[in-house]
């Protein structure tokens, strides 16, 4: 069988669909589920424009087969509802053309969840996974720091 029926848990919804085994998660999300937030860039694992969350980990969806993601918890940028990092991207002017933005947001969101006390070195390391042609990364770094600082202040109250 070169095709299979799979169940995907995307953004809190469960969807069953037929896919080619050779299909990437990026393709399925965009072409079958209409979730066009994850962007095709290099399709080679380099640029991060296609980043989504799978079981809490940032994953470049162009280098994952859909069949590998079956029954896993997937979150795309559409699944974030006014997450603090989204607000801070606006506040800090962390995008210009916006093509890389969903990928950056998903990566940054995972970083914030996993390392609530991330320091500058960790933030810089994580941001190396994504490529932005417009900004100087500084604004993106500032957006991450703003969320971390605000979360730390909230948790110390």
């Amino acid at each position, binding site marked *: 069988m*070169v095709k299979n029926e799979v169940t995907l848990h995307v953004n809190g919804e469960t969807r069953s669909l037929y896919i080619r085994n*050779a299909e*990437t998660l990026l393709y399925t999300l965009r072409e079958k589920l209409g979730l066009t937030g994850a962007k095709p860039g290099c399709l080679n*694992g380099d640029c991060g424009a296609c980043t989504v969350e799978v079981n809490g*980990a940032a*994953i470049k969806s162009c*280098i*994952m087969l859909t*069949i*590998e993601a079956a029954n896993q918890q997937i979150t795309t940028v559409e699944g974030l509802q006014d997450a603090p990092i989204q607000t801070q991207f606006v506040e800090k002017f962390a995008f210009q053309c916006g093509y890389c933005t969903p990928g950056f947001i998903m990566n940054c969101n995972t970083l914030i969840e996993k390392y609530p006390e991330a320091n500058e070195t960790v933030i810089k390391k994580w941001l190396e996974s994504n490529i932005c042609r417009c900004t100087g990364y500084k604004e993106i770094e500032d957006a991450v720091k703003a969320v971390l600082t605000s979360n730390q202040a909230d948790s110390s109250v």
Partner: protein
Amino acid sequence: MISYDFEYAKPATIDEALDQFQTFEKQGKNPIYFSGGTEIITLGRKNRIVTNAVIDIKAIPECTVIQKQEGKLVLGAALSLTEVIEQNVFPLLSEIAMEIADNTARNKITLGGNICSNIVYKEAVLPFLLTESEAMIATKKGLERRPFTKRFNQQLQLGQGEFLVQVTTKESDLTLPFLTMKKRKQWDVGYPLLTTAALQKESRVKVAFSGLCAFPFRNEQLEHRLNACQLSNDERIEQAIREVDTPLLDDVHGSAEYRKFVLKNSLMDVLNAFEGADRRW
């Protein structure tokens, strides 16, 4: 998007995986093992890897273990590089893995996938070339355990249908003083111009390289020259470099001459780091 179709199997045991391989073969397919799948997907898109069937090994429990037993560290071939780094049970390997690809890609790239990859770098091989390590291979006759350095010659030597299950490393080798250096043409992520890993055991320095030639390697003659303490560092390095018996890579990332220059500097860093000291750098 991969233009061709393939079957996908995800066996739960080593035996099932081996059987599945044979079944696919009998059906005239050319099966390959699938670990992180990043190379199969990216090269598959360009038709540089073409297959009718993949066997995903990530559900095989032996392929995802990290444990210490009988004086050895056991690492499953399907562990992601992120898991290897986060557990940090083998600092030299963690440091090498931390420089492979980027943080997100490492969630998907696996240890075994890197060791068995088609690209020339295979940086995760270096720590196992320098330590007393063994490759645990699934074969038709059962699990076969072989010294890693004997099994790895330009690439991991695997028979038809065999796959890497685990790599084990002697526990006492995990904490030896080491140094790693990854020199890239530019930027902070991606493939190396030259990656050097060095380890000191019983006052001798061992070195292994990736990116210098068309495969990662360790050369005992080169090490012998490098450890000739009666000579000056410059002489040792000069003689060590002459022992490289394979053509240096000469490509857009760097000419052979430039790689030789970088190699010379890296070896100087290695000697300086270990000079008269028994410490971790």
